[in-house]
């Protein structure tokens, strides 16, 4: 199984300098995908999820273009070949 992750430029340094990751999760869910990310890049995972495992409030994650907050959250299905995009939300000042 292979899932393509697209990161914002601000997080590329935490993924070895690349905005693109190919990940083979143990299960076809967003949680499993991020667990695999955490194993390879623990700091990157902490930028996306807090220590309780929740997506950070101002981080948006899209699976094949769909916001997971309106899908199943961390239980959202991530099928083989999916594109998962991580984006900062509209926030700040």
């Amino acid at each position, binding site marked *: 199984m292979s899932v393509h992750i697209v990161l914002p430029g601000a997080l590329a340094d935490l993924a070895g300098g690349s905005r693109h990751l190919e990940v083979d999760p143990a299960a076809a869910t967003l949680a499993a995908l991020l667990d695999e990310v955490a194993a390879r890049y623990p700091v990157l995972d902490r*930028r996306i999820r*807090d220590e*309780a495992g929740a997506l*950070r409030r*101002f*981080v948006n994650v899209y699976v094949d273009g769909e916001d997971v907050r309106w899908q199943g959250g961390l239980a959202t299905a991530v099928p083989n070949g999916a594109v998962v995009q991580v984006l*900062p*939300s509209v926030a*700040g000042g």
Partner: protein
Amino acid sequence: MTDLLAIGTRKGLWLARSDDDRRTWTLDGPHLLAQEIAAVSIDTRRPAPRLLAGVQYGHWGPTVTWSDDLGGSWHETDSGAIRFPEDTEAALGRVWQLRPDSVERPDVVWAGCEPQSLWRSTDGGCSFTLVRGLWDHPHRPTWEPGAGGGAVHTVLPDPRTDRMTVAMSTGGVYVSEDGATGWTPHNRGISAVFMPEPAPEYGQCVHKVAVDAGDPRRMYAQNHFGVFRTDDGGVSWTSIADGLPADFGFPIAASPTTPGTAWVIPLVADMQRVPPDGRLRVHRTRDAGVSWTEIGSGLPDGAWTAVLRDAFCTDDHAVTGVYVGTRDGCVYASADEGDTFSTVAEHLPDVLVVRAAQLP
């Protein structure tokens, strides 16, 4: 001898240095640009001074990062320096305070955080353990967040004993006599204007506490309305606000060398929260709050700004230096205990914290 002033702002960290006994300063930065720095400390107990910063990476969450080369490079623990244990079902909101312990406990660093929690590190701030005695306190479910969030923002370890004092908004002052295991509220005499009278045992919004140089059981508190002093380690507090133009404010600082000397920065409140008449001034007591004197030549008029609770500090010179950072991005330094100030920086983002130290 170099003096270092660390300036944490809403969008990064600046470092000011003085090599002429604090007469002139050069500014270096930004470091950690675009990151909110709500807590910083300069740990001079180590062979190389360590800068510790409580960072909020914008959208990407909070953590503690450190530099052992004065900002040249920054490091963080892979798994996160501060992580709530799984059973708490909590997550770190913000690091509000980083406090190195005494020279006798050289690797111990304390952190006060949001949600209201106290953390102890025994490796110089790389990793912290939740202080369960405070987290599991039966009062905790009723500690309400203030406007800035619910946090332990003041951490005062006694360098000579196992005594520890913390303050939180809200919750008030809590003291441990046994090395941070058991905790007792110590708020008798401190008002809580946002609650019905009489003032409760706990729940106050104490903004900052400072320890007197001469007696660790004498402390000063700037409250959400009211300035107070205790002479018995917090068991009872009495008002020392007479003589001040306003009794609201965020910071309070005590001299590390001269007993009875402390400083506050009064703000008109409740809703305005600006210096009286727009004149930013420090008020100093030399008699433990019996009387106050307005000082601060060099601080601005027309300053409709505010000084937050950690944007005010002292250094440890024999003649104490006093440092003020404002929400409109200005930083002022005094080498004469607040009598006169010079401008260190202007036009920075909102200043959240300043900390000063002499570098070895």
